[in-house]
């Protein structure tokens, strides 16, 4: 009934999809974190216009469905701006910005819930805002935020499957492709699911370990 040879015969396509998935996960996580940190810091400034812009950014990405945002970025944005955007670029941009919205919230909360006494102590020694951030606030905030950041990154990886709607050849796209000429969707999609589980179950386990370790 099951014909698993379909999988071994097309292992190269699946492997290629896996690399694409990992590539987009890493790139959009790094970019998302960097932009997220900027947005978090923007929200924490005393300059009202900047903190509002940060707030707006977060609200936007937390409330727009990712699939809508992704399709809009690829199909609508180029028309608005009258430019050409490759599907790769559109995908990276859309996923990074979307991730940034969530990372920003984690980072902001981590910085804000840090005891105000830590800032006081740093400032009382004569540290500038930047020095206090770099030496006292961020190291503590990051340490605490590792578990939620790891959790968000796992979600980020799962979200890359949506790239297949832009015909970016990630794992899910390859599955659809293989299924289309082998007529064995059952084996193919099962295999893809298993690949995700193999990667993400240990990752989740690790994230939980970090959480207890940091307590």
């Amino acid at each position, binding site marked *: 009934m099951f014909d698993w040879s379909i999988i071994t015969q097309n292992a190269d396509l699946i492997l290629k999809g896996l690399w694409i998935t990992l590539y987009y996960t890493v790139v959009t996580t790094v970019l998302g974190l960097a932009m997220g940190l900027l947005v978090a810091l923007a929200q924490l400034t005393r300059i009202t216009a900047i903190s509002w812009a940060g707030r707006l950014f977060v609200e936007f990405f937390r409330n727009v469905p990712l699939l809508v945002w992704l399709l809009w970025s690829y199909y609508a944005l180029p028309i608005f701006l009258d430019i050409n955007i490759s599907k790769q670029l559109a995908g990276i941009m859309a996923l990074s910005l979307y991730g940034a919205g969530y990372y920003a919230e984690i980072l902001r909360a981590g910085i804000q819930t840090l*005891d105000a*006494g*830590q800032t*006081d*102590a*740093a*400032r*009382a*020694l*004569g*540290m*500038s805002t930047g*020095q206090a951030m770099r*030496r*006292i606030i961020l*190291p*503590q905030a990051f*340490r605490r935020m590792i578990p939620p950041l790891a959790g968000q990154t796992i979600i980020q990886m799962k979200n890359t499957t949506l790239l297949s709607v832009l015909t970016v050849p990630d794992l899910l796209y390859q599955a659809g492709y293989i299924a289309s000429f082998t007529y064995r969707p059952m084996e193919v999609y099962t295999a893809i699911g298993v690949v995700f589980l193999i990667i993400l179950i240990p990752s989740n386990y690790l994230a939980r370990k970090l959480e207890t370790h940091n307590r």
Partner: protein
Amino acid sequence: MNTPDTSRENPLVSIRGLSKAYAAHTVLREIDLDVHEGEVVALLGSSGSGKTTLLRCVNLLEKPDRGRIEISGQAIFNQSAGGDDKAGIKQKQVNTLRSRVGMVFQHFNLFPHMTVLGNVMEGPRIVLKEDGAINRKRAMEYLEKVGMADFADRMPHRLSGGQKQRVSIARALNMRPEVMLFDEPTSALDPELVGEVLSTMITLAKEGMTMLVVTHELGFALEVADRVVFLDQGTIEAEGPPADVLLHPTNERVQSFVNRFHATAELMRPLLQD
């Protein structure tokens, strides 16, 4: 305990007409206060009287609304009613000022991600960009002074409250401040740990450190301070030599305040015999 500067001409800390409000709630009203070199001033008052706010205004952790603050003759805040900041003080100068004023907090506020030694070395390292070896040597001397040299490599969470507070005193001292501010340094401690922190402070006072101390330890105020300042609802209600203000209070608010604390003064006596 030590002989305060008798010239009385150039106070180390000079506060004039200092006012501060949180929204509609006025916390400090037209405060005038001088602290002279080598002087220990105890700041007393009931909860909510504005002691912490006044102390935090001295190093501008809290921004006053009006008034003038000078440290060693240098204006670090100067704002008249409705007017602009006349001294034109830049953030950089504020940071420099803070590096010259040591502060000890009620809840220690040690940096939990650094060792004891790391905490003490952090200020000179980052703010004064000081050489590591010199910094380390002096940090160890200050840890020795507060009796914490053996704990240099510990992380703060493995210390008792009294030990934490002594480390935080060493951290402030390592900046070699001109004046030390203490905000209820023993209030968060178990009673049996209060003594070790107070005796560290007594040592500092004897060495001639200029200190402005918010405290509920009337014994400390009585025996160690050169002067007490009693704050009530944001104004200085009484001020003078500790014995005059605390033992023969003429002000009824001071009187009722003192009555609540008689027991503590008795507890302090054994600590002061040497």
